């Protein structure tokens, strides 16, 4: 999920409040990751159920996919 937060308070608790979910539903290891400092946007990882509950809230965007990525090489037939 993308969350707009005050840069001085970009915490799991603040993100959870913005998302309207229990802070325990946010991946603590991933944390709150800045994606656009100029626009005060942050990314958090949540499970699908929590994400669906947070959709449409002000300052929130998502859920977005978190696809697998792989190195392109060495090429395999």
């Amino acid at each position: 999920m993308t969350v707009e937060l005050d840069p001085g308070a970009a915490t799991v608790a603040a993100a959870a409040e913005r998302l309207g979910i229990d802070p325990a539903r946010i991946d603590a290891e991933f944390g709150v990751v800045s994606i656009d400092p100029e626009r005060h946007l942050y990314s958090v990882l949540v499970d699908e159920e929590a994400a669906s509950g947070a959709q449409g809230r002000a300052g929130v965007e998502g859920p977005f996919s978190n696809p697998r990525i792989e190195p392109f090489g060495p090429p395999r037939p």
Partner: protein
Amino acid sequence: MRVLIQLRATPQLRAAMAAGGPVPPSTTEAAALVPAGLVLDASFEPVPMPAPRLDDGDGRLLALSAPMEFSTAPGDVTQLVRGTIPDDDSQTDVISEAISHPGIVGVFSDPVVENCLTCIGDPPVGNSAKVAQLLEVPKLEAAGMTGQGVNLAIVDTGINVAHLRAKGQPAKLGAGKHFTPAGVTTDPGKHAVDHGTMCAFDAGIAAPKATFLDHAVLLSQRQGPTVMSGLLSDALRSYAKLRRILDAMPANRKALVVSNSWGMFDPEWDFPVGHPGNYSNNPRHPFNVTVASLEVAGADILFAAGNCGRECEDGRCNFRRRPVCGANSHGRVLSVAGIDTRRQRVGYSSQGPGRLAAQKPDLAVYTHFRGSGVFSPDPDGGTSAACPVLAGVVAAVRTKFSATRLPPAALRSLLTKTADDLGGLGFDFDHGWGAVNTTALLDALNGVPAAARRRR
């Protein structure tokens, strides 16, 4: 076996061809070979072939190195038809019949022709020294562009510095600027020799004195069905750290090059196109947002175009169309296609258009060469190798031109405008704008007008 039959043009055949109507090959002298086993291709009408003039001097007939003359006089021109003859012993019957027939000049092979693009499994084409020569690295060095003092992040499977130094590269590692996912037990610069080490070697070809930042995103323990896969969220954390590193740089020395030889092979790993949470086509996806943010802040970001080229794609590719997607197709990055050291596109290099920005890839850069030895005897291959090769060139330029002085968008523009055009005229989806031309790039950086560059 496919064959061409060369026929002396009889008056009847000449008349039929002069009349302009269809000339079935069965009406030619070649029909005499049918009982012996020739099967004529009825769709291939006789093709006239000019006759080489006999040389009455000391030269040899059909000496291709000598000047040649040909006659198109009706009495001299021969005709070609095609067909197939048996592959077994009865083939000699057809040949014997042809030799003895007064109307037949000869029977020639008609081999299948196909493109000769370098593909997966082919041996290396050239080596890293050749790549350095093609990139005119000595000119970069003469201009003081070695990557000295430039941070070059390899976002990959981790770097092994010992391997690079054993290969003769200085391989300087930055301190405190790396990213290692939780759970990974190896330290930056000491990860297993693998894909990331190859990328670092290839970046070091043009920027041997760059300072590597080891962002071992693809070692993430968050799987990923394979050991060497990760999740896009791991790359998000890496980029957040890169942003902090960039923001801490003084303006006059702001330079961060980020090389990414990874991506998504399968759209099944993503929300479908049109879903608001999609990654491949969606500029609002957080990773695509962070790429834009990092570039605006002053980072040069490069992504491999991918190995899903139509001619011989990687077996993992599962895109039906437009495989250059997500950040690999971002308008604020350099999307890198692959050419071998003969400057021929490798058959597995993904072709555009891109999904986020259509005009992708941007440039075609060298790959499929003997280099790092990481996968020896296999080459440093894929657009995986091409991307860091270009990242090295960018890092070399950044030795003298900070991002404050020359923003990333301006450098991308110079690279594409000075590139050697490959493929079709101008931009094309196979090669982008073409191959790096270091001389032209240096001239452009030094303010030499384009018209003056063209006169050289």
